[in-house]
């Protein structure tokens, strides 16, 4: 697979998916950086991995399961003390239209 050249449109699309604003003056910079990183990782495509099982995690073990018990107490006051904006126990954000 040939290395991808990241253009402005792709930067904008990715920025949108990542919920980031990229200033117009910075788009080319990000595009160039991303292109270089993708060129760097292109090395991967020189190796044949057809039969190789992907490795998600270095641990071989399986997931341990937890007993179904309530172990957490109400700590709303402590947690909301560090919140940007709350009222009546709710976290407040600008009106969301669904």
């Amino acid at each position, binding site marked *: 697979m040939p290395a991808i050249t990241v253009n402005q449109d792709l930067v904008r699309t990715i920025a949108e998916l*990542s919920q980031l604003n*990229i200033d117009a003056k910075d788009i080319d910079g990000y595009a160039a950086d*991303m292109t270089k*990183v993708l060129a*760097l*990782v292109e090395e991967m495509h020189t190796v044949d*991995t057809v039969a190789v099982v992907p490795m998600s995690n270095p641990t071989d073990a399986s997931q341990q399961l937890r007993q179904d018990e309530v172990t957490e107490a109400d700590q709303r006051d402590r947690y909301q003390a560090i919140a940007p904006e709350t009222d009546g126990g709710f976290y407040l954000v600008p009106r969301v239209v669904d």
Partner: protein
Amino acid sequence: MSELHTKTLSQMLQDLDNKVYSSVELTQHYLDRIERLDPSINSYITVLRDAALSRAASMDTARSKGSHSPLAGIPIAHKDIICTEGVRTSAGSRMLDNFIAPYNATLVEQLNKAGVVTLGKTNMDEFAMGSSNENSYYGPVHNPWQRDRVPGGSSGGSAASMAARLCAGATGTDTGGSIRQPAAFCGITGLKPTYGRVSRWGVIAYASSLDQAGPMAQTAEDTAHLLQAMAGFDPRDSTSINQPVPNYLAQINAPVAGLRIGLCQEYFDAGLDDNIRAAVMTAAKTLESMGAILSEVSLPNTQQAIPAYYVIAPAECSSNLSRYDGVRFGYRCANPESIEDLYKRSRSEGFGREVKSRIMVGTFALSAGYYEAYYRKAQQIRRLISADFTRAFEQVDYILGPTTPSTAFKLGEKLDDQVAMYLQDIYTISVNLAGLPAISLPAGQSQGLPIGLQLIGRHLDEGGLLKVAHNFQQASDWHLRRPDDNQ
């Protein structure tokens, strides 16, 4: 008294037990040094002056009443990516500049139980992304050996603090080399444990399948002390290893005779600085003279490690950092006009350039149409790299090589070349992909700058690594060297 900071952590434990000085005196000594010397190093983001002294006093009291926790009264620093309850935990970022952690990381709780005094939180590359500690909201860290050079990253603050003797030991995290590379640049000992050996609960996530917290200290023995308290199974971390923690301090004194040490041929390529090559070979010979058996091993997929890492780590980080949205904690932009504006401006203003860049690379690697070719491919490469190590460890017990391709570079030197910065991690990165333990220890100097030697071990063989390192440190004195400008 004025030389307290030159002692090893192990020595301090004995001195405290023998009441040569108190924890309060020791802590005060460090706090004075931090005040005097840290302005030119910038290794601390937060110093906990009053809390540290009060804690030191209570440790002194406990000791006088006969209680004896293994690290009672020892002043340490935590990398600011590790949650400390009631204390700012910034991850080096504007995004969390106002984040007062509502809970302690498990490793913090364990070290607290062992009796440590927390001096403060150390500087770091933002969200652990970087190899020079130049990506911090709180300004770059300066290498105490030469102030115009980087200390390495992302645990640059912990490494510099330890090197400048502004703490007796420190914690760091390592995702692609972030403990070992700064340890090498700063002439200290740093260990990345086996993935799952130290709990990640409370360690702010960068790349979930690669992150591991570990100890950074002056010597292998000191490192063993810290690791003993940090390690252990934690049911709150599903990736935590459910195996008992051995007695590392009991293991380190065993001899190295008969141990098989492999020099990885791929690590000694043309890109390696000659002085580093020489120092590493000398160290190998030293170990050989102590009875270790040297041989050559090959890790054929070494060249694939950086590509695989720079897909996997950004991909996981792009997802891990989605929670930073200005809603429940952390930075929020002023006067958001809509929910989208809230997200985008909070994130864009809260995150630095390198973080945004990695988030975008990661988002790309996971996106529809590219997932197979990038993320999935990288996970397959990862399996091959892991298999390389498994094969090599059939021939040898440890793999030895340089920690970094060069010594500490100058501040600003690699800032414009992102890929050049990434290539700094060439010797350390495979280890994280395979989840194995590795240690970096001082093994020489080149033009006044420290050179680090790396040892890689089998799964859960931290004890073995510490043993080889400790043996080497009995036969060398690089680890005793300190930056020597008026300190």
